[in-house]
Each structure stands twice: as C-alpha cells, then as structure tokens.
C-alpha cells in the first residue's frame, strides 16, 4: 500500500527586535508604544509576542517556498512544494504547525532558519524556531499544549511577583534551566529518531538542530 510519509514541524516565531536590542526605526508598532510608555515589560512577554499584522498561512507558505527556492534552487522547491502545508497558524501565540514530506523536511527547516522576518509588508525581524518534529500531528499538538502549559506556569509566577530569571529562560518559555535543557533535548532526540527510519545522514541533521 502506498503511504505518504510526512513530518510535522512545530515552529515558534521569536521576535529578535526586543526593545532593548532593536533600534527605534526597525521596531514595529508594539515596540514604539512600549518605548513611549517606558513601562517595564517582562522578558517572558517580550520574547513570546503575538504576531501582529495579517499574517496568513498563504503568505507564510509563499515566503518559505521562495526561501527554499533561493537556497536549494528549483529542484529543492519542487521537492518541497509537493506536500508543504500549514496545518495551524495562531498569530496570538506566534505558533504554527507545518506539514512537510518526510524526505525533504530538512530543506524546509533550513529555509526557516534562514528566514529573518515576518513575511508581511514591513515585517518585523524574527527567528523561526523549530521546536518539535514528529511523524504524527498528535504528538506535535501534544507538545504545543505542553509548551503552552509551561508558559502559563511561568506567566503565573510572574503575576505572583517573582521575576523570571534570565532572558534565555523567557525565550525558551521555561521556568528554569532544566526545562530548557529538556526542550532542547527533545528537539535533538526527535531528530535523531527520525533518522532511524530515514536511514539518512545523522551528522548533517544533528548540525542543523544545533544551529
């Protein structure tokens, strides 16, 4: 029986133009407002910002395709195009789930790594962080839920008055180093697992997940 083999990527959009780091002209609307009001905003909120502007899945797909094209040429884009889909896109949480064919998901991942802005007009600077790769959407969804839970916990702690530790913690949505480590290992582990059934190149993949 013919079976389509896919990979699902859970991607977070992380904004790199946080007020402290970014210049005034590059910042979007939010940054300007914050600059104006001079309110102290926690790192947790800064790094997990919503995606403003009408980002649609079509735009996202187009951007990925063009990036793949520029990186890997026609062959790469042709290979990726066949099965690239956005299964879920939530601007409020800056999270999306991509469906890619299993053989070429690394191309998409690489393209995501090279993309540096939200693909809207005057898109903000951002990083696309692939946090989970899986063969079934269920596992990806479960991971998204887990991450959202961790963020909620962190936010609640914040509300209670505790300051989150470092900017890195906020970025990874964890409450401590342990969680960060776990979430990192998760990605790496998952990736290695993929290679088992891929029979593909382990070394190459490990590099990508590192980068």
């Amino acid at each position, binding site marked *: 029986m013919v079976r389509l083999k896919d990979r699902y990527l859970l991607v977070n959009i992380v904004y790199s133009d946080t007020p402290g780091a970014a210049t005034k002209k590059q910042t979007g609307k*939010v940054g300007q407002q914050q600059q104006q009001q001079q309110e102290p905003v926690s790192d947790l909120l800064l790094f997990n*910002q919503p*995606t403003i502007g009408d980002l649609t899945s079509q735009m996202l797909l187009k951007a990925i395709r063009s990036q793949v094209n520029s990186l890997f040429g026609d062959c790469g884009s042709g290979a990726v195009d066949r099965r690239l889909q956005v299964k879920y896109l939530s601007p*409020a949480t800056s999270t999306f789930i991509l469906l890619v064919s299993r053989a070429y998901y690394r191309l998409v991942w690489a393209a995501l790594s090279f993309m540096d802005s939200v693909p809207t007009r005057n898109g903000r600077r951002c990083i696309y962080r692939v946090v989970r790769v899986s063969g079934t959407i269920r596992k990806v*969804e479960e991971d998204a*839920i887990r991450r*959202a839970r961790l963020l909620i916990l962190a936010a609640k702690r914040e509300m209670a008055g505790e300051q989150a530790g470092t900017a890195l913690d906020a970025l990874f949505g964890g409450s401590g180093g342990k969680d960060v480590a776990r979430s990192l290992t998760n990605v790496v582990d998952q990736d290695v697992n993929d290679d088992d059934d891929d029979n593909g190149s382990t070394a190459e993949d490990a590099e990508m997940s590192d980068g």
Partner: protein
Amino acid sequence: MSSGKGPESRKRKEPPAAAANTKKSGQNFKRPKRVDARTIRAQPADAALEDGKLDLQKFLNAREFEIKAIEDSMRKCKAANSTRTFQQVPRAMRRRTASHNVKRIPKRLRERAKREQVADNTPTVDAKKRRPRTTRARIRAENAKRLHVLANKKRKRQKEKELASGATEGSNSALEMKIQTRQPRPKILRNSLNAPPQRKSKFRKRQINKTWLPTHLWHAKRARLTEPAKPLWSFAIPLTSTEKCYRPTHRASGQKGVVAWDMSYMSTMGLYGTAVGVERVLRALGLTQEGLWGNRGQKWRSGSRTWTGILSKQRKGSVQDIGPATIIWNPEPPKEDVDMEGSDSPRQPRRELLIRTHPSCFLELFNELVKLVKMQSPQLQVEDLRYEIGSVELTGPGSTETLLGILEPFYDKADTKECHARVFKSLVGVINPSSLPKNSLLAFSVRDPRLAYPPRRLNTSTASRGIPLIETLTKWPIEEGLKPFGLFNRDSRFKASQLPTQKMINKRKGTALPGQPVRITDADPPIPVMLFSSRPTADGHAQGTWTLLAPWNCILPIWYSLMHYPLSTGGNPRIGGLDEVRQVAFEQGVAWFPGDFPGTEAGLNWEVEERKKRKREWDKRPKSKKVDWKSLDLGAGRKGELGDGLACDFEFLFGLPKTAPAVDPSQHPTSSASQDPEQGNASPMPVFRQISKSLFNSLLTSPSLEKPAAQSVITVQLSLVTRGVANTCARIYRLPSRPPTSSQTEVPSTVPPLPDDSSLPADLRDQWLRQLPLKSSASRKNKLPAAGGQDKGAPSQKPPRIPADASMETRKALVAKSLLSTKLEYPPPPANQFNVGGYPLCPNEEDLIGFVTTGSFCLSEGKGMAVGSISAAKAIDTLKSVDAKEGRLCIVRNAGESVGWLARWEAI
C-alpha cells in the same frame, strides 16, 4: 483481459440520484466534515494584546485558548476519523463472510451501517431481487413459485368448503370440536432399538438418515453443524459456534462464565430386572471392583450417587473396552424397604438402572447388553431410551448459578417439597461443581422454565449463606426419604412432554398481574430432571461439569431459558459444540472419547474417519504444498515417515496388517446406529486393546503379574518439556538406549552392530537428556559437561568469545586466530548427519512407542500439551529398565517434521 467495458462495468455505480441531489451523501458530505474536524481554531493577534500593549493576563488567555483549541481539535479529529460500523462489531463476531450485510451486525449498529452504506455506495445484495444464477437455484425458485400458487389454491378451496359446511351443519361441527383425543404414548420396545420420535412433516425429509437434537433449529442459526449428508453418530451435532470462541471458551470454562452443550445425542439405556441379575450383567460389563458391590458401593446402589467408568466386554478370553458410561440406579420404593443384603430373599426386588453412554459406542454396548440380558435366567430387560431422555451439560464457575436460576422446583410447599430440591436450592454460591461430594446426584421435579421466562439473575448476596452451604456440602442430606426418580417413570416422562403451548403461556402471562409470577395450574406437568456433577480428574481442582437429564421434549424450553440467563459475572452462558467438548477435555488433561481411545471400537472408527478426512485435505493441496512422506529426512541417512503420515498408525506400531480402512465402508457410523443391531457385529475388531491407568499401575508395581499383551495401548498425557507443540498424529518415541559397549566390555572391536544406513550417534540419549532445562541439581551439571566432551560428532565447536572491551587490534588477532584454528571437515559432512538443525536426532523405529491423538498449545498450561496413546508393553519395559523420572521422558515428533521435542508422559 477484457476490453474497456469490463473494468468500467465493475466500478461502483454513482450513488442513487436522490441521495446525490441532497448533497448529503458520499464524499461530498464527508469531506467538509473531515476538514472541519481537522482545522484548529486560532485567535488573531489582538487577542493577546491589551489595546495594542503586551499584557500578562491577555498572554495567559491566549495560551489557554490555544490549549483548549488544540485539545478540542484532537478530540474532534478522533471522532471524525472514527471507524466504520463494521469495525465496531463485537470481537467475537466473525468478520469476513458477508460483513457487508447489515442484517448480520448487532441491532444498535444497524441503522448507522445502513447510512454508511448508502453514503459509501457499498454494493449490497437484496435477497428478494436476486435472480437465481445456477440451474438448481432456478429450478428451486420455479418450484417455490408453483408451490405457492398451489397452496393458495388449496387454502381458497378449503375456505369455500368451510363456508359451505358451516352454513349447513353448524351445530354438528361445534360438537366435533369438543372431542379431544389423547396423544399416544410413545412405544418403547424391549430389548431392541427404538425408532426416533415422529418428526414434524415439514422437517421429516431432512431427518431421513439422522436425528435432530431438540435444539436443532436454535443451533442451526448459531453454530456449525455436521454436514447434512454426513451426520455424526446418526445425529446432526453442533460442531462449533459460528462466533470466534476458542479463547472465550477457555475463559468461560475455567475462570468466568459458563459453557453449555446440548448433549441430547448422548445415548441412554434402561436396564430392568432383579438385583442379582443386574449385578451379574454389570459384572460382565467390567464393573468388577469389589468396592462397588460391597459397603462402599451402597450409596451408588441406593441411587444417591452415580458411577462413571469404562465398560468392557469379554471376547474369547480377552477383555475389550467398549467406552465410558455413567450408571444410575433408581432408588427402591420406600414401602418395600428391602435392604441390599436381602436380595437373595424369595421376593426378588426389581431394580431399574439408567446407563448413559456415548453414541459412538451405543450400538456396541446395546448389543452386548441384549446378549447378556438374554443369558440371565429370570430375564432382564433393556430399553433404548435414546429419544426419551435428553441432556444438557454445563461447565464453568457460573454453572451452578445458572442451573439455580433456571430450574425452579415444582413443589415449593414445605410439606411436599422434595428433599433433593431443597438441597439443590441451597447450593447458592457453589462455583465449582466438583466441590460437591464425588459423583453426587440430585433428582427432582421442576416447573416449566417458560413460566419464569426471561430468567432473572439469582440473588447470591444473601447473608448467612456460607454456613448452611458448607453444612450441605459436608452432610449431603439426600438419602432421607429417597423415592424412585421421576425420570425412570415412563408416564411421568410422557406427561412432562405434554407441556402447554407457548401461546397458552403467553396468555397466562398476559392475564397475570404485572410483577407477579405465573401460577402453576393443572395444565403444567412437573418435569422430572436428574442432575449429576462430575469431576474431570481425581484431584478436583479443575472445573467440574453438571449434567442435566430431562425428558427429550423438555430440553428445548430449558435450553431457551439457559441461554438467556444473565450471569452475575456478566454475559450469558456460551454455547459449545463438539470442538469445545474436545477443547475443554484437552485443557483439563482428560482423554476425550472416542478420539483419544484408539483401543476401542468406537475410537478406531473415529480414527479411520479422521484418516480419511486428512487424506482428503492432503489430496486437495498442490504437490508443492504438501508433505512428501517418502522424502522426509529424519537425519542420519534415514528417509521417509514412519508408517502413514496422515494417521495415528498403530497398525504400523504393532506390525499389524493395515486392515482398518478396508473394512471401513461397512462400518460407516452414519448407518450403524439406525439399522438393526445385528449389522453392527460386522465392524472391525480393534486388535489392540486399551488398558486402564489402574491396571497399568498394578502391572508396573507388582512383578508377579505377567506382562501386558504386546498389543495394548495406554492413554497418556504429554507435556512438552522445553518448547514445541505436538499435533495430532505426532510420533512418540522413547529415549534411545545407550549402546551396550565401551565401559563394560572394553573391547573396541565390538562396535554395536548398528545398521549401516542409520549410524546414530552413540551418545544420542545423553544428547536428549541434555535438552532438559537445567534446574539446581548440581549433579547433573557436573555430569553434563563431561558428556558434552565426548560429543565429537557435532562440528559446532565455538571459538572463544571476544571480550567486549577488546581493542580493534586484539579483535582482529582473535578473529584471525579463530579462523585459522577452526577446522572444517573436507568434504563437508552431509546435512542432518549428526543433528537436525542443531537439535538431536530422533531415535530409530524400534523406539517408536505411540502416537499423539490430540495435541496443540494448551491455554491452561501455557505450553504445548498433548494426549496420546503409547504401547503399554514398551512403556513398562522402559519404566522398569531406568528410573521412573527418566523413564517417563519421551520424544514427540510431528508427522512430516524431522525435529523432535522432549516431553514427559503421564498415564491418565
């Protein structure tokens, strides 16, 4: 291949127009549903912002929404992805056949299945619109049509006639209606076989060469029966349930539930006459144990216990087993009050006995009985009660509960209540019939079970049940006021057969107040029943069996109630067929008659039938897919299967001419029981005989007794020691003896004179003993390496293991060394010379001792088990020559395979 038209026409047609119009069918309808289920709701960015500012609360809300949305989608996806109805049918139902037929699935799923089929456009067949395809079907259809027309005409004519007669003589016909005729009591001939009861005319043609069980119509819908043209023992017997039932039966018979069989095909006989004469007849049938006729057998002879054992007959000085039978005495009427010792008094007390036996040996036993009876001086009588008394068997933890739930004693007032009924009612809480006193028997009268239909769950939770039950079980107060059993009485049996019609009962139920039980009236006869429990083995751990004897016509109403009894552990009793009888017996380690008794006539007939069946199956297979018996490689240059590979070839074992198949046609079991008794004598006598476990043990222990006849077999249970599963027809070998050389004689020239072609290794026995799993016995551990050292024949001398932490250089060096040091013989030895794929070779033909008659993986033991028969003489020889533990080891090799498995046998 066909042209363009063929594949086109085979494609599914478009869904019906009406369905297509509404756009609610097929893919059109399903697709948006699926898309809807798969989309995950998402919020716009504003939801996470408070007036465009970052806000913690909003951030939280956005995450919570995301979690909820994703969980929601996961749930919906699962529901939308859900399986089709046909994937949800109960586990036990068979899938493949007609699984597109909505009528075959449970009612609760039917509507949905119909909808799905319309949506999917599944091709279905409407039985009414199908036109007959074969010639035969067409003729049948035409016939049916014509008959329909004829019947209509007849009905019309009758109506006209009635109208005419009613107009002329209305009063006369009313008078005629009032005259009632008595149903004729069935005739029972003495000392000869009886004809089966008059069948309904509608079913008469189908029962020409067989008899239906009372529950035939019920079973025909739920079980696979014997083929119409090939009945078993002249009955249409349910073989197995149509449901998948192997594991459920195992569970129901041992752990939870009940398995019930309609065993009405078991044959009953009545034996009537003086006590002395009866005793003489029974002694001639092999009931020679003095315990039976002394004080210990008093209870049996008084009618409060049953006896079950193997009956045998005398033939030219030797004893030939007939088959197992249960013998029940009718208690003497109390007014005579004659004790057994006074049986020599001038007034000879008349006794009545019931002998219940298997239909495969019924004819043999009946003929023998008739012969014995005619030899007695005050003549005794034998009656054939086959179609008079039917029976139901139940096994499993819920069997007692089920019986209590469906059998309501007829006399429920304290003064008239039968004492057996009282004991029976106090058995609430018994979960194993074998916890009752051995061979216990209860006989009483019950009501028509239809009056209390549907049966209700028994209230088992009543407090203070424990002590009376234990008291009952220990005292077993059934001897007081023992009266003759109703089932022995022809009149009461006949009266019980005249049950009121279902219509009458429905009417009474309708008039009864809601919630009130239906009262017994004069129209309800008491149904005499007899219940006895039996234990499968002596130890009494396994589940026992209840046997319910009742008049033939009362079996059906009892069966209906039985099958609908709601067990306290959930579910209803399961039905069993012949396969389940065999399965339960096998799992309990009991030999099943007739299959596991090749030393009896019935067993031999069974074996011959099985051989033919196997041959047919074998013939059907293509040449490349069947075992070629002649080219089977047994190792050490031996070729060919021992004897017939498709048979438990006892003729080969005992060196007898292969006669059985030749005489077989005359002894077809279908024809045997139906005709006159004289014909049965033409059947082949099994030239080898069965000996019992007790006889075997006494032969083994006492040196004074002479050896058993060379051609005698004993039934054994085999449990495979290490691994492997034995199948029917597997060969059983004893362990080969050590060649009498080396140590004693010390002369190297006297190499044991083995045949040239079969040069078995000298240490074959040790090789086999080494297969035994090593326990903690240090002695064997010490011995075995020594034995292994002699093992020069085996070429598998393994090089030393490379240590795990060795460096690459060391590894290379070690590998090179091992390559150089391993000596390979050139030319290489022929395959299977010293072992078969690493397993020891099977012994030679002279060590063949028997065959497996039943064998498979046993669910109760969790390993391969088997029941087989082995030559008693060889078994005793082996046991006497070595110690008992080693002597009971044997090797089992499936027919057509060259690898044998070590097993341990135990006489049963």
